[in-house]
C-alpha cells in the first residue's frame, strides 16, 4: 500500500479538514512529514489527471474540496453542504478580532462605534472566535481571538494570509494611541503590533476546532456550523 493511497483514503472519508498528525494515525509507517509528502503527490496526481477536486490546506488541516470552476453545478443542489455567509457586522467584528487578538469586547465596540455583545456571542457560538483568556484591569475582561474554524471558513492557511496593514489604503493606528484614550481596560500591552504572534502561544486553548483523542468518529461533528443548512 503506498503512503499516498492511505492518505488519500483518509482524506476521502473525511468531511472536515484533518491535520497531518491526525492523518498519520492511520498507519505506523506514517508521520507528519510522510503525510505532507503524500499530500504533495496527491496534488500533482489530481492536477495531472484533471480531477474536479483538489487537496486544500485550511488552517492546519487538509481537506479534499471541489475546484471552484464547478461551483455553479453544485449550487443547484440543496443537499450539498454549504457554508452560510456572515453578516456585515459579523465580518467587521471578525476583522477587528483577527487583527487585534487578543482583544476585549469594549475595545471592539470602541473601534466599531456600536455595541457588539450580540455579534461576539454569535461568532463564538459558530466557533469562529474563542476566549483566549482574561485581560488585566477592571473586571478582568474576556479576551477573544480567532479559531481554526475561522481560517477554514475563509479558506486561509494561516493568519499570515490576511492582508498586511501596510498593503491597505488606510493605515491602522498603532495600539499605544488607543490605549491612552481607551476608557476601558486594555489588554496585555506586551504583544506585537497586530497581536498575531500572540496567537501561537494560545494554540493549545480548548476548542480550537481540532478534535483531540483517537475517537474521531464522523458523528462527532455533525453540526458543523459551516455547513449549517438552516440559513
Amino acid at each position, binding site marked *: 500500500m503506498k503512503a499516498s493511497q492511505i492518505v488519500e483514503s483518509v482524506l*476521502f472519508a*473525511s*468531511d*472536515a479538514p484533518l491535520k497531518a498528525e491526525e492523518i498519520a494515525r492511520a498507519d505506523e509507517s506514517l508521520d507528519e512529514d510522510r503525510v505532507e509528502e503524500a499530500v504533495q503527490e496527491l496534488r500533482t496526481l489530481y492536477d495531472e489527471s484533471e480531477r474536479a477536486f483538489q487537496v*486544500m490546506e485550511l488552517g492546519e488541516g487538509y*481537506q*479534499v*474540496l*471541489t*475546484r*471552484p470552476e*464547478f*461551483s455553479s453545478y*453544485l*449550487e*443547484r443542489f*440543496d*443537499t*450539498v*453542504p*454549504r*457554508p*452560510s*455567509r*456572515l*453578516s*456585515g*457586522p459579523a*465580518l*467587521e467584528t*471578525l*476583522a*477587528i478580532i*483577527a*487583527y487585534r487578538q487578543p482583544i476585549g469586547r469594549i475595545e471592539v465596540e*470602541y*473601534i*466599531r*462605534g*456600536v*455595541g457588539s455583545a450580540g455579534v461576539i456571542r454569535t461568532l463564538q457560538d459558530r466557533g469562529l472566535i474563542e476566549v483566549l483568556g482574561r485581560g488585566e484591569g477592571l473586571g478582568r475582561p474576556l479576551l477573544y481571538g480567532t479559531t481554526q474554524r475561522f481560517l477554514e*471558513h*475563509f*479558506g*486561509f492557511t494561516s493568519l499570515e494570509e*490576511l*492582508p498586511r*496593514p501596510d498593503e*491597505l*489604503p*488606510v*493605515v*491602522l*493606528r498603532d495600539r499605544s*494611541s488607543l490605549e491612552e*484614550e481607551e476608557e476601558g481596560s486594555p489588554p496585555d500591552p506586551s504583544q506585537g503590533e497586530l497581536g498575531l504572534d500572540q496567537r501561537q502561544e494560545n494554540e493549545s486553548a480548548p476548542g480550537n476546532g481540532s478534535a483531540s483523542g483517537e475517537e474521531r468518529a464522523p458523528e462527532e461533528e455533525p453540526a458543523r456550523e459551516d*455547513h449549517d*443548512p*438552516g*440559513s
Partner: protein
Amino acid sequence: MDLSGLEPPAAPGRPFARGDFLLVELDRFQGPLDLLLHLIRQQDIDIFDIPIATITEQFLTVVDGIAAEELDEAGEFLEMAATLVRIKAQMLLPRGEEEEDEDPRAELVRRLLEYEQIREISGRLALAEAQRARLFGKGYVEPRIREAADDTPLETTWEDVMEVAMGVEMPRAGGRSHRVTTGLVALEEKIQLILDTLEELTRVEFSQLLTPWKDPMHGVMTLLAGLELSRQRAISLRQARLFSELWLLRKDLDAWRGEVGEEMKGMETGLESLPDMSEGEEGP
C-alpha cells in the same frame, strides 16, 4: 443647508425626506462612524480637516429624526452626536498657547480612519469567504424543511437588497387609476411554453422564458404556470438561494402526460378563464 450629499447613492435625484431617510439609514449604516464616514466621503471632505460645524449639523439632522421608541438602538448615534457637539464647542474656544494641545478633532479622525480600515478588511474577508464558498466538501444535507419565518435569521447585505431592488420594475408614478384588462396572457399558453421548452432542454432558467416579452403579466403567468406544473409534479423548481435565478427542471414528461392527461383536459376550460377573474370561480 445643502443636504444633497446626504442622499443615499442608490436614489439619485430623490428628494431628501427626513423621516424615511432615517428609517432606512439607521439600518443601512452599521453605526455612527459608518454614517459619519458616509457624510465625509460623500461630500469629498478632507478627513484631516473636517468642517466640524457643517458635519455636526448634518449628523444632527439625521439623528433628530430618531423616534423616541427607537432610542434604544439609536443610543450610539446620540453619543456620537454629543461628541460632535463637544468637539464643535472646543473648536470655538481659543486654543491655549501650548502647541502640544491636540486638535479636538484628532481622536475622531483616528477613529474614522481606523474604522475605514476595518471596513476595507471586512470587504476582503467577504471576498475570501465568497471564494471559499465555491469549494465544496463532501457531505449530505437533508433537504431543508422550511423553518417558520420568525426563526430564519436574516443573513443578507445591503448590496444584495440593492441588487434585488434595482431589478424590480418600479410602478409608474402619477396615474393612480388602474386599468384592469383581462385575459391578455393565457395560463395554458405559458404551460405549453414551459412544456415545449423542456421538451428540448432538461432545464431552463425562469428569466429565459420571459425574454421575448416586456409586459410583467407574462412573468406572472409564467410563474403561475411553473407552479401549476410543479404542483402536478410535471417539473421541479429549483432555486439555489433566495432571490437567485429560478430553474425549471424537467421530470419524466411522458410518464406525467399519461398520468394527468385526463386531469389536464379537465383543467383547460378552467384555465382559460383564470386570468379573467369575473368567471374565476370554476378555476382549479
